């Protein structure tokens, strides 16, 4: 009895806490943990057309590390990340600084029109660009006809990635611009006044006040862009029917996972691809975040 009493008391105390966090924990477990746990579970099995389902341990993981198609697709999004993300972020930053400078005529118009592409659904935007890129009956074809020249096909194998980069940049400049612009707006005007009294020019103000002040926004935008690059999917999927030989079924890791599970019925291996890509993305985003924090 003496032993039981403190246990009852303790249980009662812990119960109250759980009444508060319980509902949250339940939903958290259902919508956040369960899919991850289920993916990990799936990745340990292999389901074959002949032979059915069997436990294979880490076989799917060893196979992934030797899978040239996966690493090719990973290399492709890595190049995309290294080339497209800086271009997009620098353009967005320039636009945000220009609008913020207050010297731009028709500021509201530029702000809205540059943001507008982000409001267009990615599927629609990609279809639109697909028509522009068409070298038979699309805009590129029309330009070729009108000027009697022959532009390279934007959807040929060695240009497809650059063409997709162009679409993504067009879509997301406005979004990133808005993040930077809103960060710029919270800088107190008194800083600019004192800088002006000290004789600082506009570029000195950008370098010494604006950029350091929006470092947090830059870091967030970079992390979002990294995640976005690794998740590249919609644009290549929509363009695939237009350029089936240039955009392979393993063009990006996401596309590869999709192909594996829906065309190949290899759900287990697709889950493995998803887990590894998730881990890689997390690691890279974390490293970038650490760097961003340390410098500030």
């Amino acid at each position: 009895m003496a032993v039981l009493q403190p246990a009852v008391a303790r249980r009662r105390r812990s119960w109250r806490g759980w009444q508060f966090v319980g509902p949250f924990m339940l939903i958290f477990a259902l919508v956040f943990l369960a899919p991850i746990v289920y993916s990990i579970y799936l990745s340990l099995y292999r389901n074959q057309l002949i032979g059915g389902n069997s436990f294979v341990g880490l076989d799917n993981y060893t196979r992934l590390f030797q899978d040239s198609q996966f690493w090719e697709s990973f290399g492709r999004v890595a190049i995309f990340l290294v080339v497209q993300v800086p271009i997009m972020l620098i353009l967005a930053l320039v636009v945000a600084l220009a609008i913020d400078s207050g010297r731009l005529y028709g500021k509201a118009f530029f702000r809205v029109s540059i943001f507008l592409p982000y409001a267009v659904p990615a599927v629609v935007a990609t279809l639109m660009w697909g028509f522009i890129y068409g070298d038979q009956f699309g805009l590129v074809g029309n330009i070729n006809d009108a000027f009697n020249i022959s532009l390279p096909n934007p959807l040929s194998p060695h240009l497809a990635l650059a063409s997709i980069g162009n679409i993504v940049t067009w879509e997301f400049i406005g979004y990133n611009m808005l993040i930077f612009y809103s960060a710029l707006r919270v800088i107190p005007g008194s800083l600019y006044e004192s800088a002006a009294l000290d004789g600082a020019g506009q570029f000195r103000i950008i370098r010494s006040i604006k950029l350091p002040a929006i470092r947090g926004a830059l870091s967030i935008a970079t992390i979002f862009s990294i995640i976005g690059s690794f998740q590249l999917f919609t644009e290549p999927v929509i363009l695939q029917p237009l350029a089936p030989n240039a955009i392979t079924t393993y063009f990006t890791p996401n596309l590869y996972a999709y192909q594996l599970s829906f065309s190949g019925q290899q759900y287990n291996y697709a889950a493995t691809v998803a887990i590894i890509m998730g881990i890689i993305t997390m690691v890279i985003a974390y490293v970038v975040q650490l760097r961003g924090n340390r410098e500030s």
Partner: protein
Amino acid sequence: MSKLLKVGAAATAALLSLGLAACGGGDDDSSSSGSSSTVSDADVTAALEKGGNLTVWAWEPTLKNVVTEFQKKYPNVKVDLVNAGTGNDQYTALQNAVAAGKGIPDVAQIEYYALPQFALGKSLTDLTGFGAENLKADFAPGPWNSVHSSNVAYGLPMDSGPMALYYNKNVFDKYGIKVPTTWDEYLDAARKLHKADPKAYITNDTGDAGFTTSMIWQAGGKPYTVDGTNVTINFSDEGSKKFEQVWQTLITEKLIAPISSWSDQWFQGMQNDTIATIATGAWMPANFVSSAPAASGKWRVADMPQWTAGANASAENGGSALSLMNKGLNNNQALAYGFTKFANDGDGVQIRVDGGAFPATTKQLSDSKFLNSEFKYFGGQKANEIFAKSSQNVVTGWTYLPFQVYSNSIFNDTAGKAYVSSTTLADGLKAWQDQSAKYGNEQGFTVK
């Protein structure tokens, strides 16, 4: 903190076991329902009279009228005809439904090339018990052979696609080019045409697995052999070589329009005289009428060009069956069979033929009214005579892979390279062969 962890672990364990249970449910042997039971014609008739609900997944447009007539004849039956996508899109939806074990239709349209895969996955019902084998004489041999996998019927043929050469007569007349009867003449015609009008091409192709396999089929190639789970894939046989040489020349000399079939540009090309021929199945006329109306009267139909002068070989391209699914939504297989038989062997066939479909039944294929019908789109030509002849001349002995759906999905990754780079078609087909074999082995087949 440690308490939190413990609770978390318990919750995780609970979820994990839930997941396991869900999986166990999905893994039940699906052959339990239907496969070995016997359902007599009387049972089917009784089911039709009694009525009930039926879910049918199909994209074939003429089935709509069939459903209307069917419900008129059997007022107690309510058929829910669902278009779950065309071809691969539907197979994806179907495979997902089968994997989930829920929402599976009672009847599904399945193309011949995909049928072995679904049969092997135990998703389709063996129709032997329904007496399907007694219907053998009703169907043309090609399609009848195509609904069989390991000598078991897994569906009733709905339509067939004996190949023919559709050509734009205007273009051929304009440049004084003879309609080709062999693939060598076809190559000559391609060169002449493109020289006369650099915007015009003999045909379009950006790499199409179904077309490629049909062409190899017509050339007498047999790249696939299937014996149970022993499979061979070999694109170096003579038939494959014949196709590969002609097509490589067309690609290298840039004589094929880089336009994908079924794209907007494709239909435009048919109407503005930039695509001169299309070699495809007998189901094509309805598509001409609906999607290229401006070209009405310009196009004609001819026999397939031959690989050997004077021969009359043909092949099938496309065509599909209606199959009964295991574990269908309404779990009423007698009724499902009743509908399938009505649509593919009974009154439904004529309704579909009237709607422009190409039948797989011998009765319609030899019907003089069918053979003599004149196609306004083809300038009054009796095109069915050509199709029916082609249907009789289909080269025998062709089989698809039991994982053809997947294999076709990676055609453009491999063989497609030949259309856009310096990779040769021979190397491309070899890569297709290797990738397909790799997948087959992973799936438990023995692929050589």
